[in-house]
């Protein structure tokens, strides 16, 4: 499917979605409340986005406009149709919460734990939300821009 066709499909379920076609792939931004039903629709409906190949988060707090902003970024490909889209969800940096998609894509379980560990995003209804690489009593979220570790971090 071309980007335009994908866009028309998505508009039917996400009339308020914000589209960005400047990048390599079509990007769509959805509200955090609408994320879960949209994810299920992506997985099971016409677009058949069955392969979640990249799941990550961006902390925008070092930029002028994003002081309280985290963005979840999901890269999807359909192994049936070979089209790719990028879905973004904006989160409140002070209390980031989003529904898990580990029941739609099993790979998300470990990736979401990694994001929870390093960014502090809470994934609601996640089966096993614990720190992944750091110890359970670790304080702070290292990949956030304001993380400071005076002992182990070397600044260039």
């Amino acid at each position: 499917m071309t980007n335009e066709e994908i866009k028309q499909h998505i508009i039917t379920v996400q009339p308020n979605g914000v589209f960005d076609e400047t990048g390599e792939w079509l990007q769509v931004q959805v509200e955090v409340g609408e994320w879960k039903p949209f994810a299920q629709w992506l997985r099971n409906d016409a677009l058949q986005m069955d392969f979640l190949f990249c799941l990550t988060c961006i902390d925008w707090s070092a930029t002028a406009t994003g002081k309280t902003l985290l963005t979840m970024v999901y890269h999807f490909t359909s192994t049936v149709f070979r089209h790719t889209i990028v879905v973004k969800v904006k989160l409140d940096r002070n209390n980031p919460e989003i529904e898990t998609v580990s029941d739609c894509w099993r790979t998300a379980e470990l990736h979401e734990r990694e994001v929870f560990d390093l960014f502090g995003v809470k994934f609601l209804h996640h089966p096993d939300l614990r720190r992944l690489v750091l110890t359970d009593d670790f304080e702070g979220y290292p990949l956030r821009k304001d993380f400071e570790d005076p002992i182990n971090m070397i600044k260039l």
Partner: protein
Amino acid sequence: METYKVPPNGGDEGLDTADDGALVINVGPQHPATHGVLHLVITLQGETIQKIEPHLGYIHRSIEKMCESLSYRQFIYVTSRMDYLSAHINNHGCALCVEKGLQLEVPPRAQVIRVLMGELTRIASHELWWGAMAMDLGAFTPFFYAFRERETINDIMEETCGARLTMNYMVPGGVMYDLHPNFQQRVKDFIQLFNNKIDEYDDLVTGNIIFQNRTKGVGVLSAADAISYGCTGPVARGSGVACDIRKLYPYAVYDKVAFDEIIETAGDSYARYLVRVKELRQSVRIIEQLIDNIPEGDFQAKTKAVLKLPKGEFYSRVETARGEFGVYIVSEGGTTPYRIKFRSPGFSNLSALDHMSRGSKIGDLMAIMGTLDLVIPDIDR
């Protein structure tokens, strides 16, 4: 007289047993078969695996955070330390991403050199896997056979790149220096020698009935599960999923060379084994086509001393020996990436381990882990 009663846990005070008789054991972080500091907490019922829980982080260096303070020239070399067996291919992915941002044209000579080096790296990586996998299953000789040939590749690498494992040969726009004059001849000698060696590998291990009994029907992963768990590379191709980035989204000169994407449909350990061994022959095929056809010209495009990527997001992917390696750069227009994410194949492949091993015997775990081909620094990053 008081009669002695066997305590509910069978008298093993030190063992961590649950009420239902399940036994929890640790494999790693220092276990010879994990080939790195991977810690698996395994719940057993008798000899049957109920659950595997990977504990990560023993070698986490936070490379993604580190890269945020490195320039676009520097960060490439940190990725050699992730999947150190595919160091060159990791570097390739990063260079591609920077080139995509700069809209830089890479000279044809550099592209061919990159692919040649990449395929040599793939052979070296698969060789190490083949030797280590056989060793995990109790055969010691293959390890020495594999290292014998692998050493030749390392020597070729050393001559041109100056290093044997973490080559750091890639720069945005090409490669760092031209090929060593001996390169072509030495690669040809190696290919000639290696073609016979693959037959030897097949005789020694592939056709071995003990090996087949230990791997066939073990750790079966269906195609749908492979996709859902995000598996790529030989792990997914062993389950019948076509996912070779070199075929699907060709980069460099992969669209100009003839090679086959190896796909097996059984989904068991033996299928994953076959995919890798057959890939050795395909890598040889690619090298044979290119080694006499290295175009003349520049090995590096002209670039500015300080690279600045325009504001935006860039994603590039390459096929390492383990699967799809993705580089996601978010740029704010500066000289360093604002955020960088490495999509490492090992991390996703590992997430399928629990699913694949449930219901297997503990003895089969080594056959399953061996064919996943995990490289721990790649998982932890």
